[in-house]
Protein backbone atom coordinates (compact mmCIF):
# COMPACT_ATOMS: atom_id res chain seq x y z
CA UNK A 1 0.00 0.00 0.00
CA UNK A 2 1.38 3.43 -0.96
CA UNK A 3 -0.39 6.34 0.65
CA UNK A 4 -0.31 9.99 -0.36
CA UNK A 5 2.27 10.80 2.31
CA UNK A 6 4.63 8.20 0.82
CA UNK A 7 4.03 9.58 -2.68
CA UNK A 8 5.04 13.05 -1.50
CA UNK A 9 8.14 11.61 0.22
CA UNK A 10 9.07 9.80 -3.00
CA UNK A 11 8.70 12.98 -5.07
CA UNK A 12 10.89 14.97 -2.66
CA UNK A 13 13.50 12.20 -2.75
CA UNK A 14 13.40 12.10 -6.57
CA UNK A 15 13.95 15.86 -6.66
CA UNK A 16 17.02 15.46 -4.43
CA UNK A 17 18.36 12.58 -6.53
CA UNK A 18 17.94 14.47 -9.79
CA UNK A 19 19.68 17.53 -8.32
CA UNK A 20 22.55 15.31 -7.13
CA UNK A 21 22.90 13.70 -10.56
CA UNK A 22 22.43 16.93 -12.52
CA UNK A 23 26.00 17.13 -13.76
CA UNK A 24 26.24 13.47 -14.76
CA UNK A 25 22.93 13.60 -16.65
CA UNK A 26 24.06 16.77 -18.40
CA UNK A 27 27.37 15.14 -19.32
CA UNK A 28 25.53 12.17 -20.88
CA UNK A 29 23.39 14.62 -22.83
CA UNK A 30 26.49 16.56 -23.91
CA UNK A 31 27.76 13.41 -25.57
CA UNK A 32 24.67 12.61 -27.64
CA UNK A 33 22.30 15.52 -27.26
CA UNK A 34 22.14 19.22 -26.63
CA UNK A 35 23.64 19.01 -23.19
CA UNK A 36 20.74 20.13 -21.04
CA UNK A 37 18.97 17.06 -19.68
CA UNK A 38 20.35 17.32 -16.13
CA UNK A 39 20.03 21.09 -15.98
CA UNK A 40 16.47 21.04 -17.31
CA UNK A 41 15.24 18.21 -15.11
CA UNK A 42 16.87 19.71 -12.01
CA UNK A 43 15.15 23.02 -12.75
CA UNK A 44 11.85 21.22 -13.23
CA UNK A 45 12.10 19.24 -10.00
CA UNK A 46 13.21 22.31 -8.04
CA UNK A 47 9.94 23.95 -9.03
CA UNK A 48 8.12 20.70 -8.16
CA UNK A 49 9.65 20.87 -4.65
CA UNK A 50 8.36 24.41 -4.32
CA UNK A 51 4.88 23.33 -5.45
CA UNK A 52 4.67 20.20 -3.26
CA UNK A 53 3.58 21.86 0.00
CA UNK A 54 0.42 23.08 -1.73
CA UNK A 55 -0.21 19.58 -3.13
CA UNK A 56 0.71 17.52 -0.08
CA UNK A 57 -2.76 17.30 1.46
CA UNK A 58 -4.48 16.30 -1.77
CA UNK A 59 -5.24 12.84 -3.20
CA UNK A 60 -2.53 10.92 -5.06
CA UNK A 61 -4.06 11.76 -8.45
CA UNK A 62 -3.96 15.48 -7.76
CA UNK A 63 -0.39 15.28 -6.42
CA UNK A 64 0.87 13.45 -9.53
CA UNK A 65 -1.01 15.76 -11.90
CA UNK A 66 0.44 18.75 -10.07
CA UNK A 67 3.95 17.34 -10.49
CA UNK A 68 3.24 16.77 -14.19
CA UNK A 69 1.95 20.24 -14.95
CA UNK A 70 4.87 21.79 -13.06
CA UNK A 71 7.36 19.78 -15.11
CA UNK A 72 5.71 20.77 -18.41
CA UNK A 73 5.91 24.45 -17.59
CA UNK A 74 9.43 24.59 -16.16
CA UNK A 75 11.69 21.91 -17.65
CA UNK A 76 12.04 23.55 -21.05
CA UNK A 77 13.35 20.50 -22.90
CA UNK A 78 11.86 17.25 -24.17
CA UNK A 79 11.76 15.72 -20.70
CA UNK A 80 9.21 18.39 -19.73
CA UNK A 81 6.39 17.23 -21.99
CA UNK A 82 7.53 13.60 -21.66
CA UNK A 83 7.79 13.28 -17.88
CA UNK A 84 5.01 15.84 -17.54
CA UNK A 85 2.62 13.72 -19.57
CA UNK A 86 3.79 10.59 -17.71
CA UNK A 87 2.96 12.07 -14.30
CA UNK A 88 -0.31 13.58 -15.57
CA UNK A 89 -1.52 10.26 -17.03
CA UNK A 90 -0.50 8.45 -13.83
CA UNK A 91 -2.39 11.12 -11.92
CA UNK A 92 -5.52 10.56 -14.00
CA UNK A 93 -5.32 6.84 -13.20
CA UNK A 94 -5.07 7.65 -9.47
CA UNK A 95 -7.87 10.23 -9.41
CA UNK A 96 -9.40 10.55 -5.97
CA UNK A 97 -7.21 7.81 -4.44
CA UNK A 98 -5.46 8.30 -1.13
CA UNK A 99 -3.82 4.88 -1.21
CA UNK A 100 -2.59 2.64 -4.00
CA UNK A 101 -2.49 -1.12 -4.05
CA UNK A 102 0.27 -2.82 -6.00
CA UNK A 103 -2.16 -3.45 -8.85
CA UNK A 104 -3.26 0.17 -8.88
CA UNK A 105 0.38 1.29 -9.01
CA UNK A 106 0.92 -0.99 -12.01
CA UNK A 107 -2.11 0.49 -13.79
CA UNK A 108 -0.86 4.03 -13.10
CA UNK A 109 2.69 3.17 -14.23
CA UNK A 110 1.32 1.64 -17.43
CA UNK A 111 -0.76 4.78 -18.04
CA UNK A 112 2.37 6.87 -17.54
CA UNK A 113 4.27 4.82 -20.12
CA UNK A 114 1.34 5.10 -22.52
CA UNK A 115 1.54 8.86 -22.10
CA UNK A 116 5.27 8.90 -22.92
CA UNK A 117 4.70 6.77 -26.03
CA UNK A 118 1.82 9.00 -27.18
CA UNK A 119 3.71 12.26 -26.56
CA UNK A 120 7.11 11.20 -27.89
CA UNK A 121 5.82 8.93 -30.64
CA UNK A 122 8.50 6.42 -29.73
CA UNK A 123 8.56 2.72 -28.95
CA UNK A 124 11.17 0.57 -27.22
CA UNK A 125 14.47 0.16 -29.02
CA UNK A 126 14.89 3.78 -30.08
CA UNK A 127 17.30 4.67 -27.27
CA UNK A 128 14.95 6.63 -25.04
CA UNK A 129 13.54 6.61 -21.51
CA UNK A 130 11.15 3.89 -22.71
CA UNK A 131 14.09 1.47 -22.78
CA UNK A 132 14.25 1.71 -19.00
CA UNK A 133 10.56 2.25 -18.24
CA UNK A 134 9.07 -0.56 -20.35
CA UNK A 135 11.30 -3.36 -19.01
CA UNK A 136 10.72 -1.99 -15.50
CA UNK A 137 6.95 -2.14 -15.94
CA UNK A 138 7.03 -5.68 -17.32
CA UNK A 139 9.15 -6.88 -14.38
CA UNK A 140 6.98 -5.14 -11.80
CA UNK A 141 3.77 -6.49 -13.35
CA UNK A 142 5.22 -10.02 -13.51
CA UNK A 143 6.24 -9.80 -9.86
CA UNK A 144 2.83 -8.54 -8.75
CA UNK A 145 1.04 -11.21 -10.80
CA UNK A 146 3.28 -13.86 -9.23
CA UNK A 147 2.16 -12.70 -5.80
CA UNK A 148 5.40 -11.00 -4.79
CA UNK A 149 5.48 -8.30 -2.15
CA UNK A 150 5.25 -4.93 -3.94
CA UNK A 151 8.70 -3.77 -2.80
CA UNK A 152 10.23 -7.00 -4.17
CA UNK A 153 8.41 -6.52 -7.47
CA UNK A 154 9.66 -2.92 -7.59
CA UNK A 155 13.22 -4.16 -6.94
CA UNK A 156 12.82 -6.45 -9.97
CA UNK A 157 11.66 -3.39 -11.90
CA UNK A 158 14.71 -1.38 -10.89
CA UNK A 159 17.00 -4.22 -12.01
CA UNK A 160 15.18 -4.38 -15.34
CA UNK A 161 15.48 -0.60 -15.75
CA UNK A 162 19.21 -0.78 -15.02
CA UNK A 163 19.59 -3.50 -17.65
CA UNK A 164 17.62 -1.27 -20.01
CA UNK A 165 20.04 1.61 -19.44
CA UNK A 166 22.95 -0.72 -20.32
CA UNK A 167 21.02 -1.86 -23.39
CA UNK A 168 20.74 1.74 -24.63
CA UNK A 169 24.54 1.76 -25.04
CA UNK A 170 24.21 -0.96 -27.69
CA UNK A 171 21.68 0.75 -29.96
CA UNK A 172 21.53 3.75 -32.24
CA UNK A 173 19.17 6.58 -31.36
CA UNK A 174 16.21 6.96 -33.69
CA UNK A 175 14.39 9.56 -31.60
CA UNK A 176 15.27 12.90 -30.16
CA UNK A 177 18.33 15.07 -30.67
CA UNK A 178 20.61 11.98 -30.49
CA UNK A 179 19.03 10.64 -33.68
CA UNK A 180 20.96 13.32 -35.57
CA UNK A 181 24.17 11.59 -34.49
CA UNK A 182 23.17 8.21 -35.93
CA UNK A 183 26.02 5.71 -35.48
CA UNK A 184 27.88 8.19 -33.31
CA UNK A 185 25.21 7.67 -30.66
CA UNK A 186 26.38 4.07 -30.20
CA UNK A 187 28.16 3.11 -26.95
CA UNK A 188 26.60 6.12 -25.18
CA UNK A 189 24.08 5.61 -22.41
CA UNK A 190 20.79 7.42 -22.94
CA UNK A 191 20.22 10.31 -20.51
CA UNK A 192 16.42 9.88 -20.39
CA UNK A 193 16.68 6.16 -19.63
CA UNK A 194 19.20 7.04 -16.91
CA UNK A 195 16.98 9.63 -15.22
CA UNK A 196 14.06 7.15 -15.37
CA UNK A 197 16.24 4.57 -13.61
CA UNK A 198 17.15 7.11 -10.92
CA UNK A 199 13.47 7.83 -10.27
CA UNK A 200 12.64 4.14 -9.89
CA UNK A 201 15.70 3.54 -7.68
CA UNK A 202 14.68 6.43 -5.47
CA UNK A 203 11.12 5.16 -5.17
CA UNK A 204 12.49 1.78 -4.06
CA UNK A 205 14.82 3.37 -1.51
CA UNK A 206 11.99 5.38 0.04
CA UNK A 207 9.69 2.35 0.25
CA UNK A 208 12.45 0.20 1.74
CA UNK A 209 12.91 2.64 4.61
CA UNK A 210 11.42 1.40 7.85
Amino acid at each position, binding site marked *: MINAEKVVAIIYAIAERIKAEKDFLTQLDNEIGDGDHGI*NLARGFKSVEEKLPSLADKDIGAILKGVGTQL*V*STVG*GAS*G*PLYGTAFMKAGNACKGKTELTAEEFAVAFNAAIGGVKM*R*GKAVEGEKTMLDALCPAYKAIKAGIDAGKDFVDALADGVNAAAAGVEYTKTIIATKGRASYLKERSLSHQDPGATSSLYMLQTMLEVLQRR
Partner: protein
Amino acid sequence: MVGIVIVSHSQKLAEGVVEIAKMMADNIPIAAAGGMEDGSLGTSYDKIYDAIDSVYSDDGVIILVDMGSAAMTAEMVMEDMSGRQNIQMLDCPLVEGAILAAVELSDGHTLETLVERIEDSRVMLKF
Protein backbone atom coordinates in the same frame (compact mmCIF):
# COMPACT_ATOMS: atom_id res chain seq x y z
CA MET B 1 -7.50 35.78 -40.92
CA VAL B 2 -5.59 32.65 -39.95
CA GLY B 3 -2.80 33.39 -37.51
CA ILE B 4 0.70 31.93 -37.45
CA VAL B 5 2.75 30.95 -34.40
CA ILE B 6 6.46 30.20 -34.75
CA VAL B 7 7.82 27.96 -31.98
CA SER B 8 11.54 27.47 -31.52
CA HIS B 9 14.00 26.54 -28.79
CA SER B 10 15.62 29.89 -29.61
CA GLN B 11 13.93 33.24 -28.98
CA LYS B 12 16.13 34.86 -31.62
CA LEU B 13 15.31 32.19 -34.18
CA ALA B 14 11.55 32.48 -33.65
CA GLU B 15 11.68 36.28 -33.83
CA GLY B 16 13.90 36.11 -36.90
CA VAL B 17 11.50 33.78 -38.71
CA VAL B 18 8.63 36.15 -37.87
CA GLU B 19 10.68 39.07 -39.20
CA ILE B 20 11.37 37.29 -42.49
CA ALA B 21 7.76 36.16 -42.89
CA LYS B 22 6.53 39.73 -42.35
CA MET B 23 8.74 40.84 -45.24
CA MET B 24 6.43 38.80 -47.49
CA ALA B 25 3.17 39.87 -45.85
CA ASP B 26 2.94 42.48 -43.14
CA ASN B 27 -0.80 42.19 -42.54
CA ILE B 28 -0.93 38.70 -41.06
CA PRO B 29 -1.28 37.91 -37.38
CA ILE B 30 2.01 36.20 -36.58
CA ALA B 31 3.70 35.68 -33.23
CA ALA B 32 7.00 34.25 -32.04
CA ALA B 33 7.22 31.78 -29.17
CA GLY B 34 10.90 31.03 -28.84
CA GLY B 35 13.10 30.22 -25.88
CA MET B 36 12.32 30.21 -22.21
CA GLU B 37 10.84 33.07 -20.19
CA ASP B 38 14.31 34.32 -19.32
CA GLY B 39 15.42 34.19 -22.96
CA SER B 40 17.55 31.05 -22.58
CA LEU B 41 17.28 28.10 -24.99
CA GLY B 42 14.32 25.79 -24.55
CA THR B 43 10.56 25.56 -25.08
CA SER B 44 8.06 27.42 -22.95
CA TYR B 45 4.47 26.26 -22.52
CA ASP B 46 3.43 29.74 -21.41
CA LYS B 47 5.07 31.52 -24.35
CA ILE B 48 3.38 29.17 -26.80
CA TYR B 49 0.03 29.61 -25.05
CA ASP B 50 0.29 33.39 -25.06
CA ALA B 51 1.41 33.47 -28.70
CA ILE B 52 -1.57 31.41 -29.85
CA ASP B 53 -3.84 33.61 -27.74
CA SER B 54 -2.44 36.73 -29.37
CA VAL B 55 -3.18 35.65 -32.96
CA TYR B 56 -6.26 33.48 -32.45
CA SER B 57 -9.48 34.08 -34.32
CA ASP B 58 -12.28 31.80 -35.53
CA ASP B 59 -10.32 31.45 -38.78
CA GLY B 60 -7.78 29.45 -36.83
CA VAL B 61 -4.07 29.30 -36.16
CA ILE B 62 -1.22 27.31 -37.66
CA ILE B 63 1.81 26.44 -35.57
CA LEU B 64 5.24 25.84 -37.06
CA VAL B 65 8.01 24.34 -34.91
CA ASP B 66 11.73 23.71 -35.11
CA MET B 67 11.90 20.21 -33.53
CA GLY B 68 11.39 17.93 -30.57
CA SER B 69 10.05 19.58 -27.46
CA ALA B 70 8.74 22.52 -29.51
CA ALA B 71 6.29 20.10 -31.14
CA MET B 72 5.50 18.21 -27.95
CA THR B 73 4.91 21.32 -25.85
CA ALA B 74 2.82 22.93 -28.59
CA GLU B 75 0.77 19.74 -28.72
CA MET B 76 0.11 20.00 -24.97
CA VAL B 77 -0.95 23.64 -25.30
CA MET B 78 -3.31 22.64 -28.12
CA GLU B 79 -4.81 19.90 -25.94
CA ASP B 80 -5.47 22.46 -23.23
CA MET B 81 -7.11 24.74 -25.83
CA SER B 82 -9.40 21.99 -27.12
CA GLY B 83 -12.36 24.36 -26.85
CA ARG B 84 -10.92 26.37 -29.73
CA GLN B 85 -11.31 25.17 -33.28
CA ASN B 86 -8.85 25.17 -36.12
CA ILE B 87 -5.53 25.19 -34.32
CA GLN B 88 -3.18 23.00 -36.25
CA MET B 89 0.53 22.24 -36.07
CA LEU B 90 2.13 21.73 -39.49
CA ASP B 91 5.23 19.64 -40.13
CA CYS B 92 7.36 21.57 -42.62
CA PRO B 93 10.70 23.38 -42.90
CA LEU B 94 10.49 26.31 -40.51
CA VAL B 95 11.65 29.22 -42.68
CA GLU B 96 10.24 28.11 -46.03
CA GLY B 97 7.01 27.03 -44.36
CA ALA B 98 6.62 30.36 -42.57
CA ILE B 99 7.14 32.31 -45.79
CA LEU B 100 4.72 30.12 -47.75
CA ALA B 101 2.15 30.40 -44.96
CA ALA B 102 2.52 34.19 -44.79
CA VAL B 103 1.99 34.54 -48.54
CA GLU B 104 -0.98 32.16 -48.65
CA LEU B 105 -2.74 33.49 -45.58
CA SER B 106 -2.34 37.17 -46.45
CA ASP B 107 -4.15 36.34 -49.71
CA GLY B 108 -7.02 35.28 -47.48
CA HIS B 109 -6.70 31.57 -48.10
CA THR B 110 -8.11 29.23 -45.54
CA LEU B 111 -6.30 26.97 -43.12
CA GLU B 112 -7.45 23.93 -45.11
CA THR B 113 -5.94 25.28 -48.34
CA LEU B 114 -2.69 26.04 -46.58
CA VAL B 115 -2.50 22.51 -45.13
CA GLU B 116 -2.64 21.17 -48.69
CA ARG B 117 -0.06 23.63 -49.99
CA ILE B 118 2.44 23.43 -47.11
CA GLU B 119 4.05 20.32 -48.63
CA ASP B 120 5.41 22.59 -51.35
CA SER B 121 7.73 24.14 -48.79
CA ARG B 122 9.55 20.81 -48.44
CA VAL B 123 10.76 20.78 -52.01
CA MET B 124 11.61 24.43 -52.49
CA LEU B 125 15.23 24.49 -53.56
CA LYS B 126 17.45 26.99 -51.81
CA PHE B 127 19.64 27.42 -54.81
